[in-house]
């Protein structure tokens, strides 16, 4: 079991309302990613689920039980922190064992659990080291070890990869996804990186200024964003907005030609990624438009081109930034 339900969860620090009221239903075994720009309340929401932050109003149900005022450890959830938050004065072994000791387990009960977690995480040879003697990736694995050893019904990750370098981040991303498949537990993962969100999530929760803008699978968010915020946040490079922000079209949904098309423009900058080339085009009154071309594209700065958006993949928004049916 590992369902988490938020019902009109509200958070305010004094006069400042951080989260006006969030409703969310997380199913058992789901990999949910909270994504949004910094300060959007995604970490606060996670910490409220964890019990580290009080809830101003509303309720949180875990496994169907009201846990709104339950102590963090009693919620059956484990958390992995951005800074790893290992106990610096304890060995890796004791770091992993601490939660079990606090739960009153005997050394005989604890030892096999640690051995198993260490084997899963390739930490067996480091068990007697202190966190200070480990690399960033190893510390991250200890933090995960500390979380899995308690066999929780759900995991909470608070930007766990943002302190790692790019190569390690990709490895850990795959590692966490593998872990999710193996354990089958519910995971709630906070990140500001939409690529992490797209690649890892079963469902993504997009937050903006404390409000849940949209919840959906990565492809739902990509194909059918409900608001201009989600449309701009999901996808890289971001969606182009033209005609006074009422029409949005992704760079990959624009065809280019040097002879004819709907929108004329001048190439300003080209970015060659090998597989693709991104052209940043000055489209006069339509502003700057980013277009994806093939990797072999030969357009250079100063070239005049015509762009034709795919009419079926246009997104229409009203003045409030909500999507409109056409």
């Amino acid at each position: 079991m590992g369902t988490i339900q938020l019902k009109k969860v509200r958070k305010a620090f004094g006069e400042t309302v951080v989260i006006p009221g969030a409703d969310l239903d997380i199913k058992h075994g789901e990999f949910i990613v909270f994504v949004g720009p910094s300060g959007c309340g995604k970490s606060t929401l996670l910490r409220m689920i964890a019990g580290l932050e009080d809830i101003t109003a509303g309720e949180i149900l875990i496994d169907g039980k009201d846990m709104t005022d339950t102590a963090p450890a009693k919620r059956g959830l484990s958390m992995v922190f951005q800074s790893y938050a290992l106990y610096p004065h304890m060995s890796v072994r004791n770091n992993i064992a601490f939660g079990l000791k606090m739960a009153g387990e005997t050394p005989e009960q604890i030892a096999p659990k640690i051995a198993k977690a260490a084997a899963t995480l390739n930490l067996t040879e480091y068990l007697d080291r202190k966190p200070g003697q480990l690399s960033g990736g190893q510390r991250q694995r200890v933090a995960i070890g500390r979380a899995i050893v308690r066999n929780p019904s759900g995991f909470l990750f608070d930007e766990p990869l943002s302190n790692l370098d790019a190569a390690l981040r990709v490895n850990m991303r795959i590692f966490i996804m593998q872990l999710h498949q193996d354990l089958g537990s519910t995971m709630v993962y906070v990140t500001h990186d939409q690529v992490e969100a797209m690649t890892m999530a079963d469902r993504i929760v997009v937050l903006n200024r404390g409000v849940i803008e949209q919840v959906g699978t990565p492809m739902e968010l990509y194909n059918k964003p409900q608001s201009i915020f989600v449309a701009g946040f999901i996808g890289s490079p971001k969606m182009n907005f033209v005609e006074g922000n009422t029409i949005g079209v992704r760079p990959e949904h624009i065809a280019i030609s040097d002879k004819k098309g709907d929108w004329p423009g001048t190439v300003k900058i080209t970015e060659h990624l090998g597989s693709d080339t991104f052209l940043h085009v000055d489209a006069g009154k339509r502003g700057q438009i980013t277009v994806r071309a093939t990797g072999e594209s030969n357009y250079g700065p100063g070239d005049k081109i015509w762009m034709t958006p795919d009419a079926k993949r246009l997104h229409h928004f009203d003045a409030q930034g909500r999507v409109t049916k056409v």
Partner: protein
Amino acid sequence: MARKQSTRRTVAITILAWFIGLLMFFPILWTAVAAFKSESDAYTLPQNMLSTPWTLENFGIVQERSDYFRYVFNTVIIAVLSTLLGLLFAVPAAWSMAFAPRTTPSSTISGWGWLAIVFSCGLIAAGVLYANGWHPQNAVVGFLLLLLCIVPPTAWVWTRATTDTLLWMLSTKMMPPAGALIAIYLMFNRNGLIFKDWGWINLSEYNLIDSFWGMVPLAMLLNLPIIIWMLYTYFKEIPVEILEAARMDGASLWNEIVRVLTPMALPGIASTCLLNLILAWNEAFWSLNLTNKYAAPLSFFISEYSSPEGQFWAKLSAASLMAIVPILIVGWFSQKQLVRGLTFGAVK
């Protein structure tokens, strides 16, 4: 040329530094030398420092006249107990201020409102005293009047934001201790404010003057603001996420403080203890005024030799030396312990 000039400069600065250093060290050096000279030779120091004979007689006489070890014992009791007692209050206080600070005042009453409350409570107390003669004969009435003066300002401080509370604590060290001497003396003394025959209860058998029951809490309270400040600073450097991780791991408040926070803050706690120990060890003002025999610490012991009926420079020096040596040794050894410290590796 430039190099030569800089060498000359270095030499000049070195000489100056040594001169200033020796000048500052001179009183201690003088004391250390005088302690090993006869009384008559001690007057003519330092020009005859090497020509006059060295002697240990002062130490023998000092020990014979006043029982040195009893003073050491008293000092250890006061310094150690007040430090431990202080930690007992300071660790939770610093913990709450560092990790759960109050950012805005918790009361909606304005500063002027509080001033009015404090002022009118004081006026009421004064009015009651004026109407009944200035001396309350009844312990309960006296106690209530005292509460009337103490509770409103305390309540006001209670509602302040954490930063204000910290400043307020520090402000208690800004007043010269002599300012509170009479009040504390009357609170400690037999037939003072508290320990007297109140008619229905006779407290005159008890008093805090010259007792550990008075001196230990007093020494603790004197240094409490400093301990709290120091611990607060050390605790602030500990990432709150580690404590939150402990909370997620199911650690109770006790385990969180004892098994996670304290080991991590150990270097800070140790140096705080050391400083508090030194401050309590050397404390003289209150000891001299509030003790004379049973709970008298080493500062009182030194003062015995600065009497007006004769000059005992050599013995005074010997006593001073005897008083500072233990804490000097403790400081020297714990300093090495402190420098080693702990290496933090939990956070990136």
